[in-house]
């Protein structure tokens, strides 16, 4: 990961742009470092995220934004040799603390992946999966109702309501991704983590996902990783810029894109490197 541009190290600690210091933080990360075996992938990251906002993580490839996203729901646990230092508090509780129920936590923190990954089952069964394993409904009609509700929330209901029992794999890429979003929404998470959700989609499908994010944010706290700066500018309230495993700047989106505090951020945003 060499670069010919002389990269100045950030001198300021990122300012936490909290508009309302009294509101309970949804996600509060303190001094998080992440290691793959001996190699350190994330260095001393601290960030405070409010409820019901959309936060975008941006940065060049390999800067650690996806890795950091995955620490927020302990998805990195399944990688052998992964180690975490620091705290990740969701609703005040450190999810890496002893005695934490990871399974329950993952229900609360939903995730949508870069490439849509529906199960090889019907559309209905995909959305119902989370409801079934978490035993969240007590009758068939309740289940069907929740599935419908989630598909509506994901703006997919009208397109699939007549073919709920067809295979999910027969849908287009954009529809599959919205299905994955519906599947994630079905278990009623409070936080939604989205790892480059539209990167594999065409512009029209991308637009629909972005509209969806805008509609969802009133009820969810959304964190979206994106390599597309314009998307971050369109969709998010706050933006965090990552570089080589560090958090360089974290600011309200409108301010970051017009008057970034760090030279590094400015260089990235103006395309000096990427």
């Amino acid at each position, binding site marked *: 990961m060499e670069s010919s541009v002389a990269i100045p190290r950030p001198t300021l600690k990122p300012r936490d742009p909290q508009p309302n210091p009294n509101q309970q933080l949804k996600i509060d990360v303190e001094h998080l470092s992440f290691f793959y075996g001996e190699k350190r992938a994330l260095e001393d990251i601290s960030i405070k995220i409010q409820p019901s906002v959309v936060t975008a993580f941006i940065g060049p490839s390999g800067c650690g934004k996806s890795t950091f996203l995955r620490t927020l*729901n302990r*998805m990195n646990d*399944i990688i*052998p040799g992964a180690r975490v230092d620091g705290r990740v508090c969701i609703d005040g509780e450190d999810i890496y603390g002893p005695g934490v129920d990871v*399974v*329950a936590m*993952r*229900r609360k923190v*939903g*995730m949508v*992946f870069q*490439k849509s*990954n*529906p*199960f*090889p*089952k019907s559309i209905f069964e995909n959305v119902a*999966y*989370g409801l079934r*394993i*978490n035993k969240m409904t007590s009758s068939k009609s309740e289940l069907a109702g929740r599935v419908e509700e989630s598909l509506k929330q994901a703006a997919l209901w009208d397109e699939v309501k007549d073919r709920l029992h067809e295979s999910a794999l027969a849908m287009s890429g954009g529809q599959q991704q919205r299905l*994955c979003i519906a*599947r*994630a929404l079905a*278990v009623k998470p409070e936080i939604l983590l989205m790892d480059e959700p539209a990167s594999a989609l065409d512009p029209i499908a991308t637009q629909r996902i972005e509209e969806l994010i805008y509609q969802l944010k009133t009820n969810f706290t959304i964190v979206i990783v994106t390599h597309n700066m314009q998307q971050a500018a369109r969709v998010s309230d706050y933006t965090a810029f990552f570089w080589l495993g560090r958090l360089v700047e974290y600011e309200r989106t409108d301010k970051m894109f017009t008057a970034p505090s760090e030279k590094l951020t400015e260089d990235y945003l103006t395309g000096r490197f990427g």
Partner: protein
Amino acid sequence: MRSTDLRFRIGIGIFAAALLLIVVAIGITLANDSSLSLQRFGFRFWRTSNWDPVAGEFGALPFIWGTFYSSVLALAIATPVALGIAVFISELCPQALRAPLMFLTELLAAIPSIVYGLWGIFVLVPAVRAIEALMPEGLRALPLFSGPPFGVGMLAAALILAVMVVPFTSAVAREVLKTVPMTQREAAFALGATRFEAIRAAMFYARTGIIGAVMLGFGRALGETMAVTMVIGNNPQVSLSLFAPQYTMAAVIANEFTEAANALYLSALIEIGLVLFVITLLVNVLSRGLIWSMAPP
């Protein structure tokens, strides 16, 4: 195509054709050399149970019964074990254990059938005999457990077949599980699945291949000869009892081929070989089709 390249292709193509030739030749030879028996007996051969070649009686039903019964039993025992091993090695086990465990399961497959048979005669059969003798009277009345505790019989054969089938099914199942994309498990985890539930999602994704792996094991069991013939008792009878000595197609060929005194007897045994060939061929083709639909070669 240049002519030297063409000569090269044809040159080695002839050797490759040998494989095709052999398979076809096997089929033709078996069919040809069993024609005497096929013509004489027709389907009656497989419907009658009296195998008494000395008296000229050739009822082969006990062999096909014994082959399928022993193989199905072996499958019932071996499949959960084999799948458990496959899941353990591919999903659960710490990285350091993986290579040694794989080596050990391969070792299970590498031990020659005759060695299993030897161990079967002198270790397994006495153990089974002891278990059979300990069976309470009440259970003894059931057809499944009826008969004197010989030791040799269906149970011993099923057990030894199970041991031999496990490494095959487990190796193929492991390969199939490797082809399941990680994102399937991640999707399950992200929805709050437990380890079991996430593995179940992966196994669901791989279900065709896993069924193929199980069928491959079945095909292996159908054709196994030495270990079975040494512990099954070699008695041509159709019986539901696990304790009864019975016979399989492969075993009767192995035992009686050199004693076949006349052409009809030999032809009958070859007919049994023909049917065994066809059955294992079908099972193998089916299982390979299932596996390749998931993991193309």
